């Protein structure tokens, strides 16, 4: 009897695991993204913690030079490709279709494939620690130190293939979201009525579509150099090491905005909601996002001022880079103007969104400074740049991610996080972050280059480095409080109800968590802030609930395709052609299945609660 029960329980677990493995529901895929990327964020954070422990005092020997180079490489690669970008994709998945009143994304199976490819890339990259050493040439992986001649171990192969697989997955996401937003908005949701988060998702998708191909090409070149002995970066055979830098930053700078634009969208939603006012300057906000996205493609060489491209090229990139400050400034002023005259509710989400404003201004202004080529010759590759990029990515993106987490957690899980823990979380993160990274501006100006595993006491920077490390201790505490808060909320968080914040956008008009079909009746939109207007309108919705909603059926094929790529990647890294062939064969089989399987889908009838 007990055994039978146990068996039944195991079967239930198996069934649940299977349902996650085969899901094509954007909300569940969003949860998969958020859980995976949050875990990898903790991994990347742990790597950062070790980096700062090593630098706490001069001539420290906690980790070796070899270990240190792996730590900073994996920290950067993990945070950018495997943590922060997928966290943002997770939020996009979780709420963007709801915000436009859609029942799913344009290509649900492709969406699942994107996630599984991301997971495959993440597993591949992180398994390198146990299979011969992690990549060690920095997250931008310059040639030729990443080529076989100078880096014979397997680490760089893990980087190359891991980023490649995850990157192509991201490209699919970009295509998917672009089509979703342009083709699947509900009635009345014109482009200029879309919430700003949807706008930034749209523009971010465009950036992904045109920024990732250069990365893909570059990674292929490096892969061929390492696996097939081609000469792209092999100088004696005519190779060109600056080619890597050009292609990498052609991707790399738009990538910065892939990480920052969604943050702008999140801040716009949160600030408007908790100021209880419509967003100020909506049209100029949209315009600013578009201009920033356009400019982001013509500024890449500001990452390369000391490379020797000459004063004319440098000057062109100085001017385009400086120009980005104008639309960015407009956004900052618009947020402040949104708060002006509002009734500002200091929820944890709002605290994070507000703290974004000054910290992002620090990152933005130091960004203008680094755009000034002659001055940048001093900033470049020093701790000044480390401080700048962390002010942009933590002070900017991560603050927005925290805001989004507190803001949308009730929508995603149906439960509220604790505001009390939230306050601890906020203050520890804000104080810790500034203590950690403000001194690094000066550490850089006083002459410490980045990526040094140690420094001498003669440099005069012992105190400031110790202080920076103390900041990271505080920051770490803040992150741990966040973890506690999530665990606490999942176990016994208060039920949130559909609309805990008196929200303005459509995701708050359906249940929390939203039912599989999102809306029993598709909303009709009559203006910006659709749900806010709807709540204040006296008209009731008269059109009937859809009683037969057609949804795509679950499928294991996307996970199988990603598995094939993972197998092929291991085959390539350990130089086994049969394994590569088997893996690719599995993937091609999956492609074939996806092309020709007819999906009858499932017909769902909404429950009464869903229709409410």
């Amino acid at each position, binding site marked *: 009897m007990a055994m039978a029960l146990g068996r039944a329980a195991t079967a239930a677990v198996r069934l649940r695991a299977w349902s996650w493995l085969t899901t094509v529901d954007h909300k569940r895929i969003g949860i998969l993204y958020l859980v995976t990327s949050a875990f990898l964020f903790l991994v990347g954070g742990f790597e950062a913690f070790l980096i700062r422990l090593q630098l706490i005092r001069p001539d420290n020997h906690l980790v070796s030079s070899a270990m240190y180079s792996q730590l900073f490489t994996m920290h950067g690669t993990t945070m950018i490709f495997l943590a922060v970008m997928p966290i943002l994709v997770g939020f996009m998945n979780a709420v963007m279709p709801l915000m436009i009143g859609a029942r799913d994304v344009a290509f649900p199976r492709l969406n699942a494939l994107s996630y599984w490819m991301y997971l495959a890339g993440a597993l591949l990259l992180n398994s390198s620690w146990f299979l011969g050493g992690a990549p060690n040439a920095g997250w931008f992986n310059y040639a030729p130190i990443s080529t076989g001649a100078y880096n014979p171990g397997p680490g760089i192969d893990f980087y190359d293939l891991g980023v490649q697989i995850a990157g192509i997955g991201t490209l699919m996401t970009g295509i998917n979201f672009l089509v979703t937003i342009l083709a699947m908005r509900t009635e009345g949701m014109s482009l200029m009525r879309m919430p700003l988060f949807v706008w930034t998702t749209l523009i971010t998708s465009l950036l992904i579509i045109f920024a990732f191909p250069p990365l893909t090409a*570059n990674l292929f070149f490096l892969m*061929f150099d390492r696996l097939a002995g081609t000469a792209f970066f092999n100088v004696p*055979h005519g190779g*060109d090491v600056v080619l890597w830098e050009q292609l990498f930053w052609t991707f790399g700078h738009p990538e910065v905005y892939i990480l920052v634009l969604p943050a702008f969208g999140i801040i716009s939603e949160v600030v408007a909601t908790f100021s209880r006012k419509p967003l100020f300057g909506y049209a100029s906000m949209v315009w600013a996002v578009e201009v920033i996205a356009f400019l982001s493609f013509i500024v890449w060489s500001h990452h390369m001022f000391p490379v020797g491209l000459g004063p004319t090229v440098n000057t062109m990139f100085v001017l385009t880079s400086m120009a980005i400050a104008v639309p960015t400034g407009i956004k900052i002023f618009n947020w402040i103007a949104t708060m002006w005259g509002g009734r500002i509710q200091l929820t944890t989400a709002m605290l994070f969104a507000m703290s974004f404003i000054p910290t992002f201004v620090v990152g933005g202004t130091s960004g203008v400074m680094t755009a000034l080529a002659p001055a940048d010759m001093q900033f470049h590759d020093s701790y000044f740049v480390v401080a700048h990029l962390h002010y942009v990515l933590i002070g900017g993106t991560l603050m927005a991610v925290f805001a989004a987490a507190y803001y949308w957690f009730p929508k995603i899980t149906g439960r509220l996080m604790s505001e009390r823990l939230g306050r601890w979380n906020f203050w520890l993160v804000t104080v810790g972050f500034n203590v950690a990274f403000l001194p690094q501006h000066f550490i850089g100006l006083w002459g410490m280059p980045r990526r040094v595993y140690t420094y001498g006491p003669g440099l005069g920077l012992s105190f400031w480095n110790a202080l920076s490390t103390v900041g990271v201790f505080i920051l770490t505490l803040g992150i741990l409080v966040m973890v506690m808060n999530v665990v606490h909320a999942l176990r016994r968080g208060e039920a949130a109800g559909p609309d805990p914040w008196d929200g303005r956008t459509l995701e708050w008009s359906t249940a929390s968590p939203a039912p599989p079909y999102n809306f029993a009746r598709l909303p009709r939109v009559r203006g910006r802030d659709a749900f806010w207007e709807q709540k204040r309108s006296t008209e009731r919705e008269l059109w009937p609930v859809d009683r037969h909603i057609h949804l795509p059926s679950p499928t294991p094929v996307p996970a199988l395709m990603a598995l094939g790529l993972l197998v092929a990647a291991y085959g390539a890294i350990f130089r086994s052609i049969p394994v590569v062939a088997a893996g690719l064969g599995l993937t091609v089989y999956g492609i074939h299945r996806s092309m020709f399987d007819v999906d009858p889908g499932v017909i769902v009838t909404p429950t009464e609660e869903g229709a409410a």
Partner: protein
Amino acid sequence: MSDAREAAGALAFADGAHERARFGMWIFLSAECAFFACLIGAYLALHGRTLGVPGPGALFDIPVTLAATLVLLVSSLTMVLAVDAIEREAVDALKGWLATTAALGVTFLGFEAYDFADYWARGVTLQGTVFGSSVYTLLGFHGLHVAFGIFWILSLLRACAALTAEGAVKTYLASLYWHFVDVVWIVIFSVVYLVGKAT
């Protein structure tokens, strides 16, 4: 009555799917454009570094490549005829034109293999010079796209029995892809072969 209409409404989701698939294909192909732009850009930056092996001027044999180009151009035409056959619901014509397109694709790859063997024999190897690396990578990626197109068309041929609205969209998508691969070749033929020969 209302049930029937609702069922029809429910299927609207699936109908819209065709529009979205075409739109998605266009977006995917624009990403592919960016990818090939990078390959061509890298080739243009590196093709002068021949280190003693024959460079583009000496290496390329325009008449042979022109023949390959014509084969590929004709295959685009046969693809158009295949799509046209769907619209006329002429299954036999569809099968015939798809098969012709695939055969022309295979012929093109044959030309390419012949070219590669010729270049290799004249000392331009994948590893020896960055000129070799970049030219084989560019042409190889294009060839891989042609090969995938052939795989796609052959799969379509097998599935042809079920000629439905679904199948029509799939053929249309394949034709978009095929034309794209063709257009990329025109660019490669102009920029790599004709310009290379002229300079």
